[in-house]
């Protein structure tokens, strides 16, 4: 009886163990694969973070210059204390970019733009950057007058900014007085805020209370208008680019950290699984040996 029970146990246990082992083996392989892929992903995000941080330092330096350039250009506008005309026609220009993986940059811009377009549905819209275009096209396709791409992978140059502004200004089909440039303001390396720069047309500035003091020739006013627009555009684009690079860096840092956490969890799971398999094998051997 004792021997029979031992025999029955011996045949029963290996069968159970075989199934248990195959189950464990399959899970072990799965976990190993996941571990491999997550490790690869973490390497990629870590290198993307490094690239983004070098781009951020460079972009920040360019932004400081472009910001001052834009502010200098707008200094006399501020001093003139110009007020927006009552029924001024507006145009909304959203400065996003083509690349993703930068956190909430593009959705924040499109949310701001959508909120404005909700209240002013007739405003023509110019979108710079494919990511922004895709989001805004879904809700306001009829407003989009122009869209630009190939912007945002490098620091925007004045060439690009003035090119964009000349295209917008020379299109007679789009009439506008004031331009609202929606961009992401660089608050810090980990924070940005979507805001706008208001660009006044020269026609309103000459009506401003303090503008009478300035001596200026008629002929240069048109050029001044274009120049002012291009300068403000340049400021918005470069600062937006800096904010995006910083956000990309943060996003990649978080991704790498999350991947690291996953790797730790998976490794623990894997080791526990491995130990379970070994323990089961040992049990099998020992019970088999003790039966003899």
């Amino acid at each position, binding site marked *: 009886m004792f021997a029979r029970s031992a025999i029955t146990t011996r045949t029963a246990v290996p069968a159970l163990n075989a199934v248990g082992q195959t189950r464990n083996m399959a899970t072990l392989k799965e976990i190993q694969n996941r571990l491999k892929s997550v490790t690869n992903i973490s390497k990629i995000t870590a290198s993307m973070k490094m690239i983004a941080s070098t781009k951020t330092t460079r972009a920040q330096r*360019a932004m400081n*210059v*472009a910001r*001052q*350039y834009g502010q*200098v*250009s707008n*200094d*006399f506008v501020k*001093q003139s204390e110009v007020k927006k005309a009552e029924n001024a026609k507006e145009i909304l220009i959203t400065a996003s970019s083509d690349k993703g993986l930068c956190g909430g940059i593009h959705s924040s811009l499109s949310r701001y733009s959508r909120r404005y377009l909700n209240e002013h549905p007739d405003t023509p819209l110019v979108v710079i950057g494919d990511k922004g275009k895709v989001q805004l096209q879904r809700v306001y396709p009829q407003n989009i007058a122009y869209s630009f791409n190939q912007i945002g992978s490098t620091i925007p*140059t*004045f060439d690009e*900014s003035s090119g964009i502004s000349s295209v917008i200004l020379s299109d007679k089909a789009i009439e506008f007085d004031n331009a609202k440039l929606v961009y992401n303001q660089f608050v810090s390396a980990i924070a940005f805020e979507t805001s706008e720069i208001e660009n006044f047309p020269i026609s309103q500035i000459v009506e401003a209370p*303090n503008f009478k*003091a*300035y*001596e*200026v*020739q008629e*002929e*240069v006013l048109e*050029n*001044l208008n274009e*120049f002012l627009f291009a*300068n403000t555009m*340049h400021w918005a684009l470069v600062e937006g680019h800096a904010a995006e690079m910083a956000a990309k860096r943060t996003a990649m840092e978080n991704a790498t950290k999350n991947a690291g956490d996953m790797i730790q969890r998976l490794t623990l799971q894997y080791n526990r699984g491995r130990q379970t398999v070994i323990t089961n094998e040992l049990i099998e051997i020992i019970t088999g040996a003790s039966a003899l």
Partner: protein
Amino acid sequence: MALPHEIVLKNKEVNQVDLSAVSGDLGILADHVPTIEQLKPGVIDIMADTGAEKYFVSGGFAIMNPNSVLNINAIEAFKLEDIDAQAVASNLEESQRLASNAKDEITKEAAAIEVELYEALQTALSAKSK
């Protein structure tokens, strides 16, 4: 004086600034009447107590504000000594050729602007060496 890619001068106390404007050359002293001038390619001469500095600018705007602050937005600015006379001469020839061979208005205009720029550069450089 601000360029899109560089702030050349900031909050500098100066005595006089000579500009080359579209409306003509002018010198701006402190408390000058507020003016807005479009700059043509030429030399900006900045005279301060510390000495005089000359920059060649490609164009832009100079705005004198009521608070005696002169703001200059230019696209490119370089000290005269950093400019290569040889390159100027050869580029001038190139642009003149382009201007005469130009088929359409836009190319002609663009080349004419280049010619104006290089001629101004040459004048500036020869004036300096005088």
